[in-house]
């Protein structure tokens, strides 16, 4: 049976893929067997490209196309790497943890097929250090996969061999940027690298390397098992497949759901998340994590498609939405986000290293009623300084997104703080979390 929710078919109220036997009983490792017995590596790459799977790490680049840039076949470097980006640290993002904790073999199978496609000999799962349970479960599942001959030498009796290791990181958001991640894996400080060369050509230890997000790789076994037409048909609109969408904030039923690409924002927030809690109204939301632009109630009927959200002036990002309600201070929320980015800057470029702490300070002043109108122009200037292309990596432009949209959308609230000389909202310290 072809599930309409392939990514979570093993993830229900009870954990039905806790062992490799259970995973196999529900169709697991069929995709790998099919790939190894009926497909050449390049067929895997072309199939994934035809499926129009777009990277789930935030940027939405076509995964098969990304793989096609890896030098492959005769005469190409013998050593190539596949790295799974499991650093999940984007504020308000909670999807990869679920996939790894609840169905580790799905990620492992996806990685083995992907490694076969790009001809990798070794693969790493780069997981953030705080994800202890996910890392433990992955390590256990990897042992099972070795025992069953899905990893190691001559996988399933073929000439293909692969080793897969878990690397537990030691922290910092910047490690999620793919070139910084490669430096971290090499045991260096996690500063981003200049691009080009792109990792597909010169990555880990200078060898061709593909870095993909957890959710991206979880799609692969299903695409191979069921074909690209089936996968494209799962989407409701322009984009293919399903996606894990999440909602956090003051809604009745916060959580994560696997839904078709192109599902409307309204359906996600009002139906799946149960709408706003009693006494709260939706003021605005970040559609895909902390480094996406705010959208407002007028955008609720947009489909969650990369291009549709892009046209509305934001980004699909990680697909996990953060809801701002009418009783929470928008300035405080943006200040919280900017403090995060300021703390996580690697310190390499001036607009990021010096600009973000300054932004945080101005926002703190405004929030406390000590700001001035002139400072709003200074914030706009900082947004301009952090524009794409003006810094070494995408952290600073990402930080600028919620700030620039907040300056436009919440101008009245900014002025309110400045004119009244205080914050008109209830203080965060006393906001109710239960007696």
């Amino acid at each position: 049976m072809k599930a309409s929710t392939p990514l979570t078919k093993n993830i229900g109220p009870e954990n039905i893929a806790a062992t490799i036997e259970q995973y196999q009983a529900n169709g697991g490792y069929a995709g790998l067997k099919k790939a190894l017995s009926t497909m050449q590596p390049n067929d895997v790459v072309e199939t994934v490209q035809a499926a129009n799977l777009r990277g789930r790490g935030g940027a939405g680049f076509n995964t098969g196309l990304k793989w096609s840039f890896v030098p492959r076949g005769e005469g190409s470097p013998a050593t190539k790497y596949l790295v799974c980006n499991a650093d999940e640290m984007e504020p308000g993002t909670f999807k990869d943890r679920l996939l790894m904790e609840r169905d580790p073999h799905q990620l492992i199978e996806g990685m083995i097929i992907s490694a076969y496609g790009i001809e990798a000999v070794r693969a790493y799962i780069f997981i953030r250090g705080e994800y202890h349970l996910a890392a433990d479960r992955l390590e256990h599942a990897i042992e099972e996969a070795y025992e069953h001959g899905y990893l190691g030498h001559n996988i399933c009796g073929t000439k293909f061999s692969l080793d897969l290791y878990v690397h537990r990181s030691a922290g910092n958001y910047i490690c999620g940027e793919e070139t910084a991640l490669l430096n971290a894996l090499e045991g260096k400080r996690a500063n981003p690298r200049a691009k080009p060369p792109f990792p597909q050509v010169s990555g880990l230890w200078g060898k061709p390397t593909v870095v993909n997000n957890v959710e991206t790789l979880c799609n692969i076994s299903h695409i191979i098992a069921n074909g690209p037409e089936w996968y494209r048909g799962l989407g409701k609109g322009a984009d293919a497949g399903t996606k894990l969408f999440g909602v956090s904030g003051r809604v009745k039923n916060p959580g994560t759901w696997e839904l078709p690409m192109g599902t409307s924002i309204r359906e996600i927030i009002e139906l799946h998340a149960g709408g706003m809690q009693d006494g709260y109204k939706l003021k605005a939301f970040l559609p895909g994590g902390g480094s996406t632009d705010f959208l407002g109630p007028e955008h609720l009927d947009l489909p969650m498609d990369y291009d549709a959200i892009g046209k509305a002036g934001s980004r699909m990002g990680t697909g996990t939405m953060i809801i701002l309600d009418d009783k929470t201070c928008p300035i405080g929320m943006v200040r919280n986000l900017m403090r995060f980015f300021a703390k996580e800057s690697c310190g390499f470029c001036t607009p990021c290293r010096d600009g973000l702490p300054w932004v945080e300070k101005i926002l703190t002043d405004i929030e406390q009623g000590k700001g001035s109108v002139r400072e709003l122009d200074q914030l706009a200037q900082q947004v301009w300084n952090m524009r794409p292309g003006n810094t070494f990596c995408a952290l600073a432009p990402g930080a600028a997104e919620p700030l620039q949209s907040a300056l436009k959308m919440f101008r009245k609230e900014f002025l309110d703080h400045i004119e009244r000389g205080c914050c008109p909202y209830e203080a965060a310290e006393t906001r109710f979390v239960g007696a």
Partner: protein
Amino acid sequence: MARTIEKAVTVEPEIIAREKVPGPYANYLTAQEKAEIDHEIPRYETKRAVGIDALKIVQKYRGWISDDTLKAVAEYLSLSVAELEGVATFYTLIFREPVGRQVIYYCDSVSCWIMGGEQVRAKLEEHLGIKPGETTADGEYTLIPIQCLGDCDKAPVMMVGEQMHRHLSCEKIREIFAGENA
């Protein structure tokens, strides 16, 4: 043919018994620590790449990384002390100063903030009698803010050691620490 599974890294109990339990200031590595580091080495192209893993392994036993410990790890991996120091100070989960027996990481990111995270922080400060970054006088707890823990739909959250605590409220914080005050 499938590769044989690497056995979990353990050292004979007699060897461990013979070794003094190293304090954080020990300038040598124990057999257990070395065995676990050796287990990581073939997984990477260079010994340098093992630096972070090695520091985390040793920190697991010693709580934090003193200068002497750092030197011992650097020597073991044939790295310069300056090089390893540069790495150690970059990563937030490597502690270069003493911490309590348990570290409390409370999430201070956006979804938890919206759902009352500031109040959780205030309650933790009040209960423990310390500010973020400090350790309780009995050496039991260190309070540290952490980035989004990937559990935002269950906000506010914190992690004590490796244990997640979700849907926090003042009541729940009292319950979590109640057993220990008894």
